[in-house]
C-alpha cells in the first residue's frame, strides 16, 4: 500500500511540495523579511530557467530537440542590449530581443526540419554562433540608460508573504507566469496543441490526416525561440541592465534539465524551475546566515533530483517518441 503510494508520481510530487510549503511557512513566522527575500530571489532566479524550459519543451513536443537555447538566449540578450543602448527604448529592445530569438529559432528549424541535419549538431552550431558573434561584436563601454523596473500591483502587494514576493516584480517576471499558463492551455486544451503533440509522437500518422508536419514543427520551434529570446532579454534588460560575454553561464543547459524534471510539461517545468531557483537562493542565504552546512550541498540537490527523475524512480520521464528524428514524406 505504502509502496504503491511512493511509486505513484503524484504522491511524491505532492508530498515534496507540501514539505517545501511547510518549511516556507515555518521560516516565515521565524523571520518574515528573510523568507520574503529568499522567495523573491528564487522567483527571479527561476525566470530564465522557466522560459528556457518552455522553449525547449515546445520544440521537443513537436519533435525537434533544441540544445541551442543557451546560444539563443545569449544572442537575444546581446541584440536587446544593443537596441537599448542605441534607442534607449526598453520596450522596443525587449521586442527585438524576442524577435532575435525567433529568427534563430527559424534557423534551427531550417537546419533540423528542412535540411534534416542532426538536431544536436544544429543546436551546437547555434551555441557556437552565439558565443562567437556576441564575443566578437561586444564593445566595452556601451551603457544602457536603465533596466525594467518593478511594477507593484497596488493592494495585492500588501498580502503578507505572497504580496512582496509575487506582486512586486518587473514585467518579464509577470509575463513568465502568464506564459507558463498560456503554453499549458495551448498545448493541452486546443486543436493546435493536440497536433503539436501528435507531430512529436507519430508524424507519419499526423501526415496521413493531412496536417502539415513541417509547418507544425517550424511554428513551434520559432515560437519557442521567441520565448528563449524573452529569457535573453530578461538577463540584459531586466535583471542586470548590461551585457557581459557569456553571461548566460549555462542557464540554457540547466533549462534542459528543468524541462526533463518537469516531464515536458509547462507547469511541471515551472515547478522545477522554482525548485532550482529556490536552491540557488537558499545557497546564498545559508552563507548570509554564516551557517556551517556546506552550501554546495543545497546547490547539488536539484541536480540530484533530476538524476532521480531521469532514472525513472519517480514515475517515468519519457520524451516524445519522435524527438530528434527528422520527418521525410514518402
Amino acid at each position, binding site marked *: 500500500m505504502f509502496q504503491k503510494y511512493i511509486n505513484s508520481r503524484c504522491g511524491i510530487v505532492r508530498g515534496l511540495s507540501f514539505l517545501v510549503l511547510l518549511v516556507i511557512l515555518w521560516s516565515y513566522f521565524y523571520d518574515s*523579511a*528573510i523568507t*520574503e*527575500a*529568499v522567495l*523573491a*530571489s528564487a522567483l*527571479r*532566479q527561476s525566470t*530564465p530557467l522557466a522560459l528556457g524550459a518552455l522553449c525547449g519543451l515546445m520544440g521537443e513536443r513537436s519533435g525537434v*530537440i533544441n*540544445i541551442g537555447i543557451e546560444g539563443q538566449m545569449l544572442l537575444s540578450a546581446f541584440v536587446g542590449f544593443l537596441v537599448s543602448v542605441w534607442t534607449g527604448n526598453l520596450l522596443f529592445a525587449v521586442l527585438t530581443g524576442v524577435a532575435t530569438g525567433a529568427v534563430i529559432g527559424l534557423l534551427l528549424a531550417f537546419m533540423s526540419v528542412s535540411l534534416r541535419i542532426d538536431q*544536436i*549538431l544544429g*543546436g*551546437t552550431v547555434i*551555441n*557556437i554562433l552565439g558565443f562567437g558573434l556576441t564575443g566578437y561584436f561586444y564593445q*566595452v563601454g556601451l*551603457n*544602457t540608460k*536603465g*533596466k525594467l*523596473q518593478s511594477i507593484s500591483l497596488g493592494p495585492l502587494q500588501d498580502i503578507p508573504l505572497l504580496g512582496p514576493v509575487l506582486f512586486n516584480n518587473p514585467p518579464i517576471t509577470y509575463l513568465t507566469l502568464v506564459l507558463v499558463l498560456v503554453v499549458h492551455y495551448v498545448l493541452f486544451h486546443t486543436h493546435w496543441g493536440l497536433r503539436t503533440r501528435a507531430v512529436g509522437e507519430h508524424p507519419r500518422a499526423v501526415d496521413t490526416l493531412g496536417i502539415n508536419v513541417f509547418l507544425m514543427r517550424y511554428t513551434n520551434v520559432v515560437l519557442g525561440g521567441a520565448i528563449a529570446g524573452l529569457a535573453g532579454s530578461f*538577463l540584459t534588460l531586466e*535583471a*542586470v*541592465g*548590461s551585457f*557581459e*560575454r*557569456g*553571461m548566460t*553561464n*549555462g*542557464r540554457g*543547459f540547466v533549462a*534542459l534539465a528543468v524541462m526533463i524534471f518537469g516531464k515536458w510539461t509547462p507547469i511541471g517545468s515551472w515547478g522545477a524551475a522554482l525548485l532550482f531557483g529556490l536552491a*540557488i*537562493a537558499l*545557497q*546564498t*542565504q545559508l*552563507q*548570509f*546566515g554564516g551557517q556551517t552546512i556546506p*552550501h*554546495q550541498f543545497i*546547490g547539488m540537490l536539484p541536480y540530484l533530483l533530476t538524476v532521480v527523475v*531521469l532514472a525513472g524512480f519517480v514515475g517515468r520521464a519519457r*520524451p516524445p517518441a519522435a*524527438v*530528434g528524428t527528422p520527418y521525410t514524406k514518402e
Partner: protein
Amino acid sequence: MCILFRKLIIVLFFVCLNSVVIAAASDCRKKEILCVGLVTDVGTVDDKSFNQSAWEGVQQSAEEIGTVIKYLETRDPKDYMVNISLFAENDYDVVVTVGFGLGEATSQAAKQFSDVKFIGVDQFQANALSNVAGLIFHEDQAGFQAGALAAMLSKSGVIAAVLGTNLVPPVVAFKEGYVSGARYINAKIQVISTYHPGGLAVAFTDPEWGASTAKQAIDQGADVVFGAGGTTGNGGLIEAASHSEKYCIGVDTDQWLTLPAAHPCLVSSATKRIKEGVFQLIQHAKESQFPSGNFFGEVGLSPFHDFDNKIPQYIKEKLTEIHMGLRNGSIKTK
C-alpha cells in the same frame, strides 16, 4: 537515453572549445627587444577589473619603454599551461599571468622555461623561483578600509558583500578584511556576505547571480553592497545602483571609471594598484633587476568622485587614520 548521452558529449565538446591564435613574433629573438605576453584568467582582457588593470600596466610598458606586447584570453582553466607555453615557445622575454588560478601553471612553466621571466599577479610564492615574481597585495587591508567606509555609511546596521569564489585566497582576504574593518567601526554591525557557489570557470563571470544576490541582501535591510569578484561583483554593484539610498563599493580598480552603470551608488573602490605593480616589474625586468619571490603592490580606496562632497569630513579623516594605521602596523586586520 542515447539522445541524452549524445547531448552530454556535445555539451562537453562545446565547453572544451577554445581557439588560440598567436602570431610568431620573430623580433622577440633579438636581445634588445623586450617582448611581453599576458595570459588572462578565465575572462577577458577588457573585464573592467583585474585582467584589464594588468593589461594596462603592460600597455604602459609598450608606450614608455618600448616593449612588444600581446595578450591571450583564457577560456577554460585547463588551458593555462598551453597559453603560457605559447608565449614562452615564441621567445617572449616576460610573461604576465593574471590571477591566482594560474599560479600552479606559472611555476610549472617557470621551471620548464628558465630563461623567461614570469610576473604572477595575485600569486603568492611559497617557494621562490629565481625567474618568478609574484605581484601580491594586502587585500585584507583594502577590504578593511572598504568595510570601515561601509560601516560608517550604513544607517540600517546591515552591510553586504557579493563575492567571487572562496577558492581564490585574495577574495577571501578581501572579505575577511571587510568584516574586520566594519567591526572596527561598529562592533555590532551585521555583515552578510556570500561567495559564488560555482567553480573558477563561472564564479567571476556571472553578473545575473551577483545582481540577484545583491537584491536578496538589500531586501533584508543591507544598505551598502561591496562587490568583489569580476563581472559577478559588477552585477551586484549595478543592482544596488537601481535601488534608492543605497551605497556600493567596487573592487580592484577604480570602478567609477570602468563601470558607469554603478554611478548612482558607487562611493569608492577597494583598489589594488595592479597596473602600477605590473609596470614596475616589467621595468625591473628591462633593467635586469628582476626581483624574485613576492613583490607587494600598493592598496587603498579610490577617490570618491561625485560623492566627494556627500561624504562628511569626519569619515574622510577616520579613513586616512585607518590607512596610516594599516601601513605602520598599529591597526591589524585580524
